[in-house]
């Protein structure tokens, strides 16, 4: 009980999590900012305690997915809107960051040109409009949240205003990400077509593949993940969050109480899309590639299952689900590649049939006994 956060008597801190919750976050902070850097950088590779670059990248990647899962839980778990297009926002954030990383390659590409390789290949002489100012980090960082946010706002405004909901909404979000995928597959769209962006060399002037840079990216991702979790928790425990839950459970009653659900849904929808964009931007420099495959409808549906496995409407469950499913995925795709799809399919079926409240719900019901 020495942590300053735990001793703080702020109302907000107490509203978000109880002592056990804060303790868990403290442990996560220690693991991410102390254990991982020390075991990865300071401990010799021969030592059994060494954490390899593979694990750093894997956990970093899953933390990005966990952010997406939190975003999904915000709208699905709390507002009852199932989006099958969240992969689109994730990919857009990734592409915004990717543009900056492509510009950072400079003249080190295969063609030694100021333009990215794929543009030289297409015989383009100048940057398309969308690439304006993309060599500035601040501009791309702005795009990372602004592009998904604006798209989500425009799409959500019309959809929620016309009271498109339930399965209809899910299906048109799926159509949206499918259309975007087709668009990005075209070479002429100006984002590298099939291959997307890859072969990054530098970020903010420093080489991107060194262990130190990797660890910094890992730490930043961990910090943003914890920040996202706290932000999401703040939203859902606020009055606004309670209205959202009310909309999920009985939208008409909320309307007849004098609230306009459109504003609330739109707010949480845009926040969710921006979190996805941020996650995508952190994902790309760690994984080293972004291509239109990220926008495929299948990817977006998978996001929903992370949340469903962990437990909807709990936030922590979303993070847990992302770690469980993606951890399982990287284990199974290496050990038994042909069984992964059976496994994933069964998770979808069994978790909806037998685990309506996910792992978190299961634990809660055990505790009650």
């Amino acid at each position: 009980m020495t942590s300053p956060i735990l001793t703080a008597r702020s109302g907000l801190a107490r509203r978000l999590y109880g002592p056990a919750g804060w303790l868990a976050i403290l442990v996560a902070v220690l693991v991410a900012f102390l254990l991982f850097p020390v075991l990865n950088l300071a401990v010799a590779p021969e030592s059994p305690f060494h954490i390899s670059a593979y694990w750093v990248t894997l956990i970093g990647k899953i933390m990005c997915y966990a952010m997406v899962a939190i975003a999904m839980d915000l709208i699905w778990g709390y507002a009852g809107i199932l989006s099958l297009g969240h992969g689109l926002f994730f990919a857009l954030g990734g592409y915004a960051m990717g543009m900056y990383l492509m510009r950072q390659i400079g003249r080190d590409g295969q063609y030694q040109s100021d333009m990215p390789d794929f543009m030289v290949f297409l015989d383009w002489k100048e940057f398309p409009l969308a690439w304006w100012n993309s060599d500035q980090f601040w501009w791309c960082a702005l795009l990372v949240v602004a592009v998904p946010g604006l798209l989500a706002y425009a799409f959500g405004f019309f959809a929620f205003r016309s009271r498109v909901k339930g399965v209809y909404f899910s299906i048109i979000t799926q159509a949206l990400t499918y259309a975007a995928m087709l668009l990005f597959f075209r070479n002429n769209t100006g984002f590298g077509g099939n291959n997307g962006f890859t072969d990054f060399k530098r970020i903010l002037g420093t080489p991107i593949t060194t262990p130190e840079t990797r660890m910094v990216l890992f730490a930043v991702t961990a910090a943003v993940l914890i920040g996202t979790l706290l932000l999401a928790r703040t939203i859902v425990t606020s009055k606004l969050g309670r209205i959202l839950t009310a909309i999920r459970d009985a939208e008409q009653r909320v309307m007849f109480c004098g609230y306009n659900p459109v504003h609330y849904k739109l707010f949480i929808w845009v926040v969710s899309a921006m979190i996805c964009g941020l996650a995508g931007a952190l994902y790309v420099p760690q994984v080293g590639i972004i291509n239109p495959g990220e926008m495929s409808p299948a990817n977006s549906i998978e996001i929903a299952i992370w949340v469903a496995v962990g437990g909807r409407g709990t936030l922590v469950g979303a993070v847990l689900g992302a770690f469980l499913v993606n951890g399982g995925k990287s284990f199974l795709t290496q050990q038994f590649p042909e069984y992964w799809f059976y496994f994933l399919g069964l998770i979808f079926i069994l978790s909806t049939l037998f685990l309506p409240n996910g792992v978190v719900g299961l634990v809660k019901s055990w505790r009650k006994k």
Partner: protein
Amino acid sequence: MRLILLLAIFFSTQAAALDRALVDKLGFGESDEKVVAINAIAASGDPRAAEVLGALAEGELQTSGKLVIIVKNDEAFDAASGDKLALPEEREDVVANNRLRGAVSAALAALKLLSPDRQQRLAALKELSDNAEGADVAMLGIVRRALAAETDPGVKPLLEQVAASLELKGGDREARIAALQRLAGSSSANAKTLLLSYIETEKDADLLAEARKSLRAVEGKRAWAERAGLAFTGISLGSILLLAALGLAITYGLMGVINMAHGELIMIGAYTTYAVQTLFRTKFGAAFDWYLLAALPAAFAVSAAVGMLLERLVIRWLYGRPLETLLATWGISLVLIQTVRTLFGAQNVQVENPAFMSGGVEVLSGVVLPYSRIVIVIFAAAVLAGMWLLLTRTRLGLFVRGVTQNRAMASCVGVPTHRVDTWAFGLGSGIAGLAGCALSQIGNVGPDLGQGYIVDSFMVVVLGGVGQLAGTVYAALGLGFANKLLESWQGAVIAKILVLVFIVIFIQKRPQGLFAVKGRMADA
């Protein structure tokens, strides 16, 4: 004895008809002279012309001293007369370069125009109209003669076109005008290029005006042909979308079950067709062409069985929870895809068209309607009609509609609602299987087949309006047309994107689809 004598005289007179001077030019002349000689020999229409020209093309034409001879299997013949000679010691090849070969093949093709065999005439015409150089003006005589003799309606238009192109090169002014007027009646791409190149070279104002007029006529006809072709591909795509979406119109439209594995039920139908085809090939090779007749019920039965099993095991427990149904059926689709991959391999499998479905009818020059597509349009209409009859005229259809409209009331009057659910889901799945059987005839069959149709078929059902068979039909045909129209204007990918964006916007305006049942619910 007298007969032999007569024959000998006949042959010798015929053989002597080939002009020796021309043959000598063929043997000893310069390249230009040789081309002139080739055309002149062909134009003579002599029966031995083909033999001599063929010999030149085959490298059998040789010279010995002042004589041009044909050497075949170590036997020598005089090229001009065809008389057998002693094989001379000193011989030299007559070398045919590419230009000569081109001239020879055009000349031989022109000679074939007089052949009594229809296929040979058609092949010759194709050769002449595809040949970049075109037939030489010297062939005009032969072509005119062929035209006068030609009576076959399938050959005559082509021949007229070749004749016209020659008249434009070599005919006098009247002949040219007549040729131009005749070309105006054509709708082929060759006629268009012919006129275009003619306009570039012609100086005479009257002829030029005539040529322009003909070009406009040809282009007008071609535009119609293209529009007709576009309309057909639109209907064709629409019928494919309709087939893919009809099953969904029952499971989603009537029962309200979001079945993301619908595409995989289509895929199962296609693989069943493949299995039946393989069975026919190995067991009843003679009846191979009729495997489709066996594949149709098999595809329906297998997909329907899988669908009913799914309904019993999974979907039943999720009624009233559409989002969970969506996720569970997505899981089912993953399992089904992987199962098929394990059973049949990840590669596409070959499904062969039966003989009667390959080929097509050419309605206008350049517009071919493949039989397979025509059959699918008819098939989609038949499935639609069958489904309509089933829903409106049978007891099961009555039950399905009853359960859809008011489950509790239907149950009260003794309808076994659970069993009706299973049967209805099986019916929708079976129709997906039929769609798969049809799709196997026009596209690749692979484990991912269904994934490509799932977004499209949901779009069709959503656009048409839930619970509306007519809406599904209009939506499928409308989307098919829109897709193909946009495709001809902006390319396939942009067309697809535009259609999707249109649907997304449309749903916002009319969330109930095109043909919604009017109600007064606050939650429509």
